[in-house]
Structure formats: C-alpha cells, structure tokens
C-alpha cells in the first residue's frame, strides 16, 4: 500500500510538483521533529532536494528555511543536485577498503566517465562513495540503484556497467515505442 502511495506521489510530482510537495509536508507536519522525514520524502519523490524545494517546504511547513538548509547540508543522504539515470554507490567500508575499493572506484570512473561524487557527462551514471553497505563478507561491494554486487574485480565492473548501459538503453527504447504507439 505504501508503495502505491509513493507511485502516485511520484506521478503527481511530475505533473504538479507544488501540490506533491504540499502533500508531503502535510503528511508529516503534525509529527514531532518532522523536518528530516519531510526532506527524506521530498528526495524519495523528486530524486533530490533543490534550494527552491527547500524554500517551498519552508513556506508550507512554517519551519525556517535556514533550518531546512542546515539539515540538508549536514546529512550525507541529501543531494542538492539531480542524479543521473543510474546511481552507483561504492562501498568504502573497512573490509571493502582492504579488498581494494579504491581500485574498484577507479575502474568505475574509467568505465562510466563519471568522477566520484559526480554525474557522468552523458547523464547515465552518478558515482557516490558511501561509508558501508553492510555486506563486508562480500567485499568489495557496490550497489547500483537497488541491486547489490559483491566480490568485485575490475573485470566484473566492466561487465556490470556494460549490462547496466544495455538495460538503460532498452528501457529508453521501450518508452519511445510506447509513445509512438
């Protein structure tokens, strides 16, 4: 049920972003300490939290915009810029560090052309370093969108990125086909 709600909200966000934003604020505003859940929901719905969204959320909720901004910049989870089509999170936990996370990051940069923390020029990939994905026995580990990949080598990275590119392209074609029909 929760999934359905989120889907509807995402659809609304595309058509009428302000109304979606207002709904998010109202969903949480009665809770104690609502600021973080509001920002989390905005990011879940829009993919990121822009300064303009912060401004609007402040107006709707009555919270000072400075407070929302200070939260959005304090916590690592919040992104102030939109992300690429695929989000790659490279685990830099201790086990992954020992197992060569740096090397995996380098080959990811090489394969996607995105630098760590940024989005690739073609908009396909955003590369993010994260603290720990909690799959230490499978180190080194990355997560692409919702899927986790473990025991990586530069070779495997190459294959995974190739596969992700292919899936991305297929998705896009699928969309084009639907619109055409």
């Amino acid at each position, binding site marked *: 049920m929760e999934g359905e709600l989120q889907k509807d909200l995402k659809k609304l966000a595309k058509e009428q972003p302000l109304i979606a934003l207002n709904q998010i604020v109202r969903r949480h505003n009665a809770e104690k*300490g609502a600021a973080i859940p509001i920002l989390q929901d905005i990011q879940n719905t829009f993919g990121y939290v822009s300064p303009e969204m912060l401004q609007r959320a402040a107006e709707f909720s009555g919270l000072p915009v400075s407070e929302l901004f200070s939260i959005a910049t304090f916590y690592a989870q919040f992104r102030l810029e939109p992300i690429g089509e695929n989000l790659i999170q490279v685990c830099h936990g201790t086990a992954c560090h020992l197992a060569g996370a740096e090397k995996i990051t380098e080959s990811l940069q090489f394969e996607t052309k995105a630098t760590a923390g940024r989005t690739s020029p073609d908009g396909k990939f955003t590369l993010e370093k994260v603290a720990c994905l909690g799959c230490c*026995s499978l180190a080194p580990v990355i997560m692409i969108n919702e899927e986790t990949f473990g025991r990586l080598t530069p070779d495997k990275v190459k294959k995974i990125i190739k596969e992700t590119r292919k899936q991305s392209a297929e998705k896009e074609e699928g969309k084009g086909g639907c619109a055409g029909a």
Partner: protein
Amino acid sequence: MPEQNYRVKVGLATCGIASGAAKVYDALQEELKETGTLLQRTGCIGMCYSEPLVEVIEEGGKSYLYGKVDPAGARRIVEEHLRQGRPVKDLLILGESAETDDRSFLEKQHRILLKNCGRIDPEDIDSYMATGGYEGLRRALTTMTPQEVIAEIERSGLRGRGGAGFPTHLKWRFTREAPGEQKYIVCNADEGDPGAFMDRSILEGDTHSVLEGMLIAGYAIGASVGYVYIRAEYPLAIRRLKLALRQAEEHGLLGERILGSDFNFKVIIREGAGAFVCGEETALLMSIEGKRGMPRFRPPFPAQKGLFGCPTSINNVETFANVPRILHQGADAFSAMGTAESKGTKVFALAGKVKRGGLIEIPMGTTINEIVFDIGGGISTGKPFKAVQTGGPSGGCIPASLGDTPVDYESLKKIGAIMGSGGLLVMDEDTCMVDVAKYFLTFTKNESCGKCTFCRTGTNQMHKILERITKGEGREEDIDTLVDLAEKIKVGSLCGLGQTAPNPVLTTIRYFRHEYDAHVREKYCPAKKCKALIEYHIDSESCTGCTLCARQCPAGAIAGEKKKAHHIDQSACIRCGLCLNSCKFEAISVVSEPRVRT
C-alpha cells in the same frame, strides 16, 4: 522418497541477495510448485562466505546445508536430493556426509542470540512465536512488576552491546526513577561503523526479538512510546521492521492494553539520514527531534532529559535482542556464559582477509586466535596473519602477537582497543598499517560534526600528516606530533567520536612503529600499498606481448609492440593496478624498495 517429506529454506538477507539468493529462491519456487514441499525464506545463518545458502530439512529434522548454490545448483538439489534421495555432495557444506571442514565455523560458536537467524522466517510472527517468542514479554507483563524486570536484568549482568558496555539495568533504573509523565525508549539501529553488520543481520533475521526487547524495556521504565532510529542504507531491515510492527499489532502485542494488561506501547520508525555521529546518543536524539545531529554536554544524561526533554533510555539493537531470552529463560541461563565482568555472548561481524567471514556469536572471553583460526579458518590469502581491528573508527589494531587476548570489555581496553559494536576485521601481511590509520582518519574527519575545535581541526591535521607520510614526504617529528595531537583531541572533544577518533592511529603507532619508520625514514611501504611509494614493473621474460595491459591502462602509460615485451612509463603511470589485474601471465609485479635518505 516422496517430496512432501522435506522443508527447504533459503537465506534471504542482504548478503544472500547480493550473492544471488533471490534467483535461487525463484528457481526453487518454480521447481517445487505443485509438489507440496514447503519452501521458506530465512535470515542470515552467518556463513556469508558461502552464500547463497539452501537448507534441506528431512521430516525427522535431519538437516543438510548447501553453499554457493546457483539456480542450476538449486535444480540439482531438487532433482537429486528431493526426488531421488541423494544429497548433492559437491555443494554440501554441513550435514551427514559433508566433506568440507565448514563444521568448525560453528563449533566454537554459541549461537544463542542468533539462534533464530537463519532458522525462522523473519516475516512471519508465528514462526517467531513457535520458538518461544513473546513468552518473555508475557512473563514480564503477567507475573512481574517493572522493578522486578529491572532486577532480573541486573542479575543477568547484561551490558550495552553498542560498544561502551554500560550496565543496561542502570540505564533502565535511572530512566524509571527520573521524574516525568512521558518517557521514551529508543532503539539505536544506526549501525555506522564501517565493517559492521551485526545489527542489520539481527533486524533482518530475527526482527521480532528486537521489538519484544523494546516492549519489555518500555514496561520496565514506564514508557509508552518507542523509537527505532535505523540507517536508511538498510532498506530490507526497515521493510521487515514495518511488517513486524503490523503483525505484532494484529496479535495484540502492540498498541493498547497489551496482553490484557494496563501497558500501552507504540513504536515509531525513524530513518537516519547518513551521519555517523548520530550513533552517539545525544546526537541521535537531536536527529529524531529533526535537527542537525550534534552531540551536547552530559549531564543531564538522556535518562534525566532525553528525547523532547523527557527521560529516555537508548539501547542498541543487540542489547534489546538479548532481553526477551533473559526474561523467558531467566537471568542465570544468560550469566552462565561469559567472564566475571562480561556476561553472555557477543555477536561479531567477521570480515577482511579471513577464509570464512560472516556473522558469528561467541561467549565473552573467547580469544582472538580462536576467532581468526578456528572459526574463521585462517587467512584467506595464505599469507601471515598480521592484525585484527575491532571497534571500527573508534577502535584499535591488535597485532597477531597478542592473539591470545580474550575478547571481553576489560581485556580489549587494556591493550588499547575496544570491544566496539562488533566489527572484527582481519588483516594479513599485505595490509599497510599506516594506510589503515589514514583510512580511519579520513572517515572520522569527514564525519566530525564540527562542534568541537579539537575534533574538527585536529583530525584534519592528523589526516594531513598521515597523508604526507604515505606519500613519502613524512618528517622525523611527524610521529611525535601525531601522538601529541591524539592526546589533545581525546581530552578536547565532547563526544565519543572525537574522544576515540585517534585510537586507530595510536594503536598502529604502538604496535607497528616500524612501518611508520619505514615510510618516514626509508621512504618505502613494506606492504606495497601506498601509491606514491610503489612502482609497477613488467618482467620482460614472462611478458608475451598480448597487449591486454596496454589496452586496460587508463593513463596510456604502457607501450610495446605486439608479441614483444611491454614496458611501463613510470612518469605517466597513475599506479591504479589495473594492469596487474589484467595480466594473465603474472608478468607484472609491484615493488617498493627502501631508499637512502636524502
């Protein structure tokens, strides 16, 4: 033998899914549909090194565990074992006729807290209740006063499993006795230590035990609301927690007048937003209140003035998970295990350069060598064992020479390390200890909230010095400066983050001083890890001129004609090591030589 006699379980925790367990589950579902064989999902059984895991249980209870199963393997298990009654020997790791030594992974463990993980279906409350689940809560609510519950916890000797080891009964008693109408229970599931995944595994594999522990705590201190503060990076744990809340409500175990008593309790889930410092209790409370997670002075302690200004008891996931058993089976059963000061068992996430990494549970007092060699099966690379790291960024590195140190709160503290929340990283000879220290400082300097000057700028300075040392630009006085800074950061910081941030540096200097000296004085890295101090070389004898490395090199630093030996231009090489990985003829090696001091 007809198929109906079997039950089949697939480990579907994050580790399992990452290894492809979901595909194995789908394959089994396809094979077993319309057969009447019961297919179940379960949590992490702990043998992460052998995921995906499939367990086949015969009617009489005899169990066979298969490791590293792929969909094809799953189909073989159905065909050969379930249909023809012949266990698939080459996949079998535990059970009659298993030919591997995986049994020793479990032999030194005492899986009491984890007994349900990998056994029950975490998404089914009945599965939990069938193993005595919610009996502890029933006993507390129907036969005991809150004071008696606290006394029982005191008798058990339970100490906080989040790392510091504060006696749980004291926290509860202080909160209970603090004046105030509204009180709160908070479950700290912000498992931020890199290299630790115990709490995730418990939440994914035995969700209800944590919830039951919170309920008992709520009753004991007189709280009607509990918060779970959980990392957003653990989506599966969050999903299972939400499901558990709903099931508990339906069974009258959550909400108003629980089990017919006067006790009311509700639980709210709050997702963390990615700040390591929020593992510190006052920062965590700030975060639940919707603010920046910055620690504050104590006292007042949260037991007096916590969440929204009300008395609050904050306990770790593993602490809560221990509570139901203490109430159900009694304090004596719990305290029978462990040492004089540290009772019970402790869960560790065993990882790093060890053969059998995974989730383990040992009685307090087990030695480090027993963990690394008996349970972990020794070093995965076959190279000498060098050190273990406990406690993550707040902990220390323990050298192999202290391998007979028992794991308990006091013994670890004595040698400069800490128990921590349970991360246990094993390192072999190829690990550079200066690099490890730098790694942890990178982490803590980024995660410092910025409130205390010593923590904010001190960790940055330490990091700069370490950076310099690993680049071969270290100065003679650097190591003394590091120690001096470390001592000042420890006393000049308000919270645990700053107070413990220098530990990885101090312990590596204490036990591996020679490695620092090698970097500073002789400008080389004995473990051949520090980029600025190594070179890659192609052996012209073994190089076949296949050109693979040249094509892999992102810097275009490798040149050579086809079928002739290649060579690396050292000035262009960025030392990424991709060539070393790509070479099929072992012609590329990495070297680091002591240099004469200039």
